[in-house]
């Protein structure tokens, strides 16, 4: 029987995707705006730290790869959004520690 992942498992998987410039995962950077799980279909709304970030394609593809790599995920959709724009205050405590932010 296939197990459908829950939100915490999806977040754990997305913690393996890092922003290579900041050296921190996307979840703790606060770049993951929304997760929707509908059976085996997962959709994620994410942003990047700055519009025009040259990494945005890599990160979006990385999020999709990480989702498809999860047991029980049959399809994954990743939307890149810029509204609201990202701000360092959106980082978690872990993210702040990892990036040396205060």
């Amino acid at each position, binding site marked *: 029987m296939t197990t459908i992942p829950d939100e915490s498992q999806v977040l754990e998987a997305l913690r393996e995707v890092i922003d*290579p410039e900041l050296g921190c995962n996307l979840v703790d950077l606060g770049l*993951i705006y929304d*997760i929707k799980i509908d059976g085996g279909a997962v959709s994620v709304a994410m942003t990047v730290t700055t519009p025009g970030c040259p990494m945005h394609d890599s990160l979006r593809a990385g999020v999709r*790869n990480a989702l498809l790599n999860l047991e029980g995920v049959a399809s994954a959709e990743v939307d890149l959004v*810029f509204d*609201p724009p990202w701000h*360092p205050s959106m980082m978690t405590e872990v993210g702040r520690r990892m990036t040396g932010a205060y």
Partner: protein
Amino acid sequence: MEAILPLSATVSPVTTRPAAAAEPTVPSIWLPLSFIVTGLLALLTAVGWMIAQPDLLTTYHYNQNIIALTHLVVLGWICSVVIGATYQLVPVALETKLYSERLAKCQFVFHLVGFVGMVWMFKTWNMKQVGHFGSILGLGAGLFIYNLARTLLRVQKWNIVATALASSLAWFTLSILAGLSIAAGKCSYDSTEGAAVASGVRTLIAGLRSMGAFMSRFDAISAMHAHAHLGLIGLFTMLVVGVSYKLVPMFTLSEIQNRRRAGLSIALLNAGLLGAFLSILLRSPFKFVFGMVVCAALGMYGWEIAAVLKARKRAALDWGVRSFITALCLLAPLGLLGAVLAWPRLPLNVFTGQLENLYGFLGAFGFVTLAIIGMLHKIVPFLAWFKTYSPHVGRFRVPTLAALYSEHLQRIGYWTWLTGLAAAGAGILLQSDVVARLGVIALSFTLLMLAVNIAKILSHVLQPKLSPLPGRAKSS
């Protein structure tokens, strides 16, 4: 484990808007890399030349070898890297795609042939051939300017970065025209007298003769200084100012603090440079006034960057950003030196000549080169990472950009560069070949560190270092 969505609590999914322009903006890594490697080879050659002949720094700069060396540094090193980096950074800074990679590749060939030929011909002081090779370089520069101008036309929302870029393209055009005019002014065009030449060629020669006659109205050294300022301030400083308004906030997790101040710095830099160019060319005492306008522009810029850094959220600055910021700090002694040299009643003696050498040296190797070395530790790792690891994100554990090179070597290189600058600067002022040579040897040590780091970074392209993700993956 409880889900931690830092924004899910504060952002309604309904309010999120899909990105309008999410197309890839990065050109092929080989395009910027070919310019960057060319630039590094030119810098190595220039530093080797200075070690072999330190008198190039300690004697007055109006001679064929120093002019050849200057063009090797400015066109071969600075221009090559700046053009390569521009092809990579401008699409990022302007949030759009480069207009044409093919034009950029064509430019590389023109640029390479043009600057190598120019340096060689300057060394043999064959000004007619300098003009020919300069025209080849100019053709390449024309392709660069056209390519960037078309890229600028794609910008949906005009901003200060776009204004700075447009300004630098205009100054680059003027700088090349000024350089070619100076070359035309030093040539004689009597070889085709009486010969039956095509009317187009005759017209061209007549035009060059007129240009030569026009340029003979200006003092040769003043024209050379005016041309140098167009390049170093108009192209390089303007680009550094504009691009850093995007990159410094990006790397330090900060924001522009006062857009008006940032815009004013660019407007003042444009106004000051125009006045400085004309007043230097005409040997007018107003060059001091316009020099002060340029200093005010750079002061505004420094004020804004200091405010950006003060508001940053990232406490520790990496060594790439530190090098860049140190380079910006060197604008202060450079501005002071420029003000002294622009003083209308400054006596024209040997020491003044050495001050001019120090001014040029600090500008090229202090401000511009240190800024470039700092940014190369951002650009080259990104290019290698993007080529090697980008397709594997989410499938494997990939390294960070900082893990691609040695920060230890970078730190050593930073300090040896500053030591070398101080020593070579002292050698220039004291007219001591020994001290100048020691300074340049210290600079070469930094280049060794840089070369090792670049080799380490590029080794990832040949041999990627991927590690598997923790065992949570599909069993299939």
